């Protein structure tokens, strides 16, 4: 089954890295197919940054997302630019402290940035908390796969910090109930 996952937030939150990690989890560790793309322009640095992953059991031909079924939104501006027109059967995981609107579709508010600050003192891992919540609430990739992909992708010396954030995200996602 084809999943289209769209990430949006502001530049510096690790929106593109989140997509790279999710794609790596799917393609390398879950042995599925994945294609990762991003908006690359200057407005993506500081403005609304966007990246996307297509995950499928079959080879991915058309690589762009056209109708995302999973949204991961980490800023109000990102919501307004990419999340507002989500289809009714999509699901949205949003950073509840940074996104004030709520979509019509099923959604899971996750206090990722607050939790990152409370738990680790580092807001920089908020995207990893979001990833944990995405995985536990949608099952789009396996938990083992995302763990390995996170460890592959983060700087040396920050492994424990990131795994702690990922686990916190899992819990927040499970508590929200299954979205997919």
């Amino acid at each position: 089954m084809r999943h289209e996952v769209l990430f949006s937030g502001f530049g510096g939150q690790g929106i593109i890295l989140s997509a790279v990690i999710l794609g790596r989890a799917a393609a390398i560790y879950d042995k599925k197919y994945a294609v990762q793309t991003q908006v690359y322009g200057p407005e993506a640095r500081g403005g609304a940054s966007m990246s996307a992953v297509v995950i499928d059991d079959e080879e991915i031909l058309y690589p762009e997302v056209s109708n995302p079924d999973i949204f991961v939104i980490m800023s109000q501006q990102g919501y307004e630019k990419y999340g507002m027109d989500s289809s009714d059967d999509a699901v949205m995981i949003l950073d509840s402290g940074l996104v004030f609107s709520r979509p019509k579709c099923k959604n899971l508010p996750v206090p990722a940035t607050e939790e990152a600050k409370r738990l680790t003192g580092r807001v920089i891992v908020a995207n990893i908390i979001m990833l944990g919540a995405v995985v536990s609430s949608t099952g789009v990739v396996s938990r083992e796969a995302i763990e390995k992909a996170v460890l592959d992708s983060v700087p040396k010396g920050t492994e424990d910090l990131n795994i702690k954030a990922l686990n916190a995200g899992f819990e927040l996602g499970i508590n929200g109930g299954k979205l997919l």
Partner: protein
Amino acid sequence: MQGNIACAEGALAAGCNFFGGYPITPSTEVAEHMAKKMPKMGRTFIQMEDEIASISSVIGASWTGAKAMTATSGPGFSLMMENIGYAVMTETPCVIVNIQRGGPSTGQPTMSAQGDMMQCRFGSHGDFSIIALTPSTVQEMFELTVRAFNLAERFRCPVFLMSDETIGHMRERIVIPEIVETKNRKPLEKGKLPFEADSDLIPGFPVFGEGHRVHVTGLTHNAKGYPDTTNHKIHSDLVKRLVEKVESKRHEIADYDILNNDAEIVFLTYGPATRTVRQIIKDRPDLHIGHINLRIVWPFPEEVLSEFKSAKVFIIPEMNLGQISREAARHTNVPVLSLPKLGGEMHNPKELLLAMEEYL
């Protein structure tokens, strides 16, 4: 892995041991990756002061026997044009990667395009022939870069990897083979003149530093390599040979795949649009769509068009205003429908289905 990184890895696997370049969006990751890897492998990476110097360094390096490349995008590509002609005239093997962005001029640095397809073919002055490859997946970024080096070595001409921002910045899983087949240029045999072609129209290569005394010039030259700029026959024979050494082998060089060759509606694509066509073929088997995917656009493999005997139309989606459509149209009596798209995004399935409608 990202497309641009796959290109760099392909170059390293092919034996590239000289990179001279000047970073430019959206090709920068190629240079970045080469800068990271090459010094550790004992190979040479030089960031030059601009793109004119970059292509010059590549040509110079190639004459020392190096497998040399550069990577750039539109504005840098324009600057390279003069010396691309010099590489043609001096029969210098080299690989030029162009990760295309929106032009003309500085245009859309971060957006995708295919607007340089004619520039790589005809951008430098005078008559000549080159080879241009067009990947549509990250895997092909690797494979076709290897192929580009092998073709450059064999044909002693500039070979272009004409990719685009879409494929260059996309990430996909790739498989890097343990062993990659590589080819080396034919050496100059003892007793032969340095620009004396063999029956394949290609002279052996006299590597600098291996005992040859060779004069290399962009002026029209005789078999010895010395300028002879007023003799009609020498000029005519030389230019014709430079063209024919590539064009006479174009069926051998050709690299494409075809699907449903009994179809009435046929798409011809290269680069990203290949993926969109494959998507609609998968989603709409009822429409029985024909498809030609070119992995090598230049020399244009015109024979592929005649394999579609029932074709009513060739539809050609390109991220330019129809550059290869015009080339296709001059090789067939079947109507050619150009489907241009500017602005920086690849064609989506809806656009292609809509274009088909009037032919259904």
